[in-house]
């Protein structure tokens, strides 16, 4: 009987220890990397046609119809960063037929929003009719923006 009592006495602290054992702490939250936002690549956000631009390259006199002697400006806004290649293709449209008027490429290393301008002039005067401007980005096969305008 003494042995049994001694055995119980020995077990009590162990059982007590087991009972008083703190619950396992909840697992730490998963380690999350600091939020890093990859810089967005350059994209075209808008194209405006007009007869004049300011020092900021923005069109100051918007238009979609021009006179024969006008210089025609296109202000192309871009967002994002990194190297970008903008290609402006100006086309004369007569029914199903088209004739290329001009094609100019502008390469830039954008550090943020930028405004870019393309312009065309024809000293002998623009033929009357319908025209189109297609803006391509980074050698893409299809234009990212298209604007139609008239001369006449």
């Amino acid at each position, binding site marked *: 009987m003494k042995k049994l009592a001694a055995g119980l006495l020995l077990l009590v602290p162990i059982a007590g220890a087991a009972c008083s054992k703190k619950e396992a702490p909840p697992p730490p939250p998963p380690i999350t990397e600091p939020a890093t936002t990859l810089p967005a690549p350059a994209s075209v956000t808008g194209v405006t046609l007009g007869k004049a631009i300011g020092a900021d390259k923005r069109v100051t006199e918007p238009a979609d119809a021009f006179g024969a002697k006008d210089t025609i400006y296109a202000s192309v806004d*871009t967002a994002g960063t990194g190297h970008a290649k903008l290609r402006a293709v100006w086309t004369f449209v007569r029914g199903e037929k088209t004739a290329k008027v*001009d094609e*100019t490429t*502008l390469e830039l*290393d954008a550090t943020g929003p930028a405004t870019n*301008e393309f312009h065309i002039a*024809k000293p002998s005067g623009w033929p009357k009719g319908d025209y189109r401007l297609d803006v391509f980005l980074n050698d893409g096969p299809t234009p990212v923006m298209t604007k139609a305008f008239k001369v006449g």
Partner: protein
Amino acid sequence: MTSPEDDDDDMPDFSDVKSGASSTAPGAQAYETYEVQKGDSLSKIAKTKLGNGNLWQKIFDANTDILKDPNKIYPGQKLKIPRS
């Protein structure tokens, strides 16, 4: 057989069009892409595209990635013609 509609001769001539481009982004470079034709030289291209054959050096400088000798250009090469 071609119909009159297929004939491009009735389309206007845009060979005298002047163009350019610029940007608020620093270091932007504007150019036209020109494919070298048989019989071309840099001075001939400069005369046609820049209005002055003596400006051939501008074309050469813009294409040093593909041109090593200004006297050696080949049909099919695509050159950058600088624009202002």
